[in-house]
């Protein structure tokens, strides 16, 4: 396996008396989409900006593509692409001007500006001023700027915050496209759905500490193995038969609707087996799987939105 694209060990960052990042260590593998997820104020941006070389941690070490973001910042900036949370551009800069300026800043003088505008659906907006763009268009422009130098690692901080669901989905597609091209993506989000749909692996951060790291499915298995099955049937014997499902920990009935709770990967198939052996005819069958949202709730004792 190739060495990790990013390695962070034991970084700490304080602002006056406020400890924004207590102790964060993590590794981002080459070619993956890695998400740092947690509520607002958890220390995501601070961590990410330390990795980008924009802020300096008080202690701890960081290595990105084998470089030290503090010492080798200019060398590193040639090889990474950055989208900042809450950044703006000059109000009256035109889209093509921004792309052209950014292209001129890199040593290799990249020529993919027009191509990026096309891929990101910004061709009709080439001559528009930044201030006239919609939220989604601005974010797409920022993605274009982050990709202009064909970077090896792309940093995306709260990329879809403030966008409507449709624009958000379009952006997710773009991010997957970045991974397809072999690049490493390090992103932050406070949207669990986004992390679940987009990330290969996530780290959950709260109060400046990493609580756990893994793929969304691993985290769910590890922390909330509970699953539920909801089914609807008119079969009079269903209740008796379903009570025999050994892996079910409990069952509730509401008219013709039965809800079974259990845990582990085998639970759902054991319910299906029981239904087919007893030849019970079901009108509806749904499994309810826990999500990262539930993982977060379980780990921190509160919802990410509180």
């Amino acid at each position: 396996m190739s060495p990790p694209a990013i390695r962070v060990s034991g970084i700490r960052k304080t602002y006056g008396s406020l400890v924004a990042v207590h102790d964060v260590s993590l590794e981002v593998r080459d070619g993956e989409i890695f998400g740092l997820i947690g509520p607002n104020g958890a220390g995501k941006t601070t961590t990410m900006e330390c990795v980008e070389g924009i802020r300096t941690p008080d202690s701890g070490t960081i290595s990105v593509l084998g470089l030290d973001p503090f010492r080798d910042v200019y060398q590193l900036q040639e090889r990474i692409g950055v989208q900042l949370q809450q950044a703006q551009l000059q109000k009256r800069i035109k889209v093509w001007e921004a792309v052209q300026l950014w292209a001129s800043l890199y040593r290799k003088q990249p020529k993919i500006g027009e191509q990026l505008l096309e891929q990101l659906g910004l061709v009709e907006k080439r001559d528009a001023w930044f201030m006239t763009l919609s939220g989604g268009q601005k974010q797409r422009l920022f993605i274009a700027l982050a990709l202009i130098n064909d970077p090896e690692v792309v940093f995306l901080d709260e990329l879809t915050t403030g966008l409507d669901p449709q624009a958000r989905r379009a952006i997710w597609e773009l991010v997957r496209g970045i991974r397809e091209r072999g690049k490493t993506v390090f992103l932050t989000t406070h949207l669990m759905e986004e992390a679940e749909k987009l990330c290969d692996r996530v780290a959950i951060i709260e109060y400046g500490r990493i609580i756990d790291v893994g793929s969304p499915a691993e985290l769910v298995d590890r922390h909330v193995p509970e699953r539920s099955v909801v089914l609807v049937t008119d079969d009079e014997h269903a209740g008796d038969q379903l009570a025999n499902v050994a892996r079910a920990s409990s069952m509730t009935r509401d008219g013709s609707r039965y809800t079974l709770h259990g845990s582990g990967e085998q639970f759902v198939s054991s319910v299906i087996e029981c239904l087919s052996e007893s030849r019970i005819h079901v009108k509806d069958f749904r499994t309810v799987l826990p999500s990262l949202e539930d993982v977060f709730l379980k780990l921190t004792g509160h919802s990410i939105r509180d």
Partner: protein
Amino acid sequence: MRGLWELTWLETKIFLREPLGAIGTFIPVAVFVLLGRSLPRVSATSALPGDGVLSPGGVPVLVSMLIAISAVLSLVTIISIYREGGILKRLRATPLRPPTILTAHVLVKLLLTAFTMALMILAGKRYFTTDAHVPLFSFALALLLSAWSILSLGFVIASIVPTARFAQPVGALVLYPMIGLSGIFVPLAQLPPALRALARVLPLTYVVNLLEGIWRNEGWLAHLGDVGALVVTFVVCIAISSRVFRWE
């Protein structure tokens, strides 16, 4: 300094797109022309007849200084707006070196000052007879040096002022009163000793001294002290702002 010309050119274009950008550049020239029209044709090297408020060469010096000050105020405002909007931070997260970003802004302002100056000189030729030979090139050079020096003061203000909303008023509060003590309205010798001492540490005093002297054809050698004071101002201000400047 890769990207310096691209950024300078782009920032110039962006500035001219601002509703107040282009107009603001022409206001001092318009004032100058109106002033020129409303007065009888006078010799620029002698005091204006009838008031005696301004020293010899006073009108062009005052207007030039206003041009430089408006450039500085505009710089202070732009830097604060860029900081507040995260634009400075966004530019810094590229291979652009921080001094390049700031140098580009200074260049834009110097360019605009030079341009306004040129317009003013054209207007001046029309409305003020210059019976003595006024060294326009030297005067323009002296003005650029002055602008460069007070721009560095502008950076100190931009470093300290916390929000964009206060940038312009704070800048104006610092700079305009300086004009009053600069010796252009009241000669330094006539000021009370305390004010005179204060005037001696204000950069605009040296700006006025230099500009008036050059306008009166006294030559650079007679004003090396003023040039030195402006260079010191620049060095001190840049040293201060490189310590206290905030990017976000």
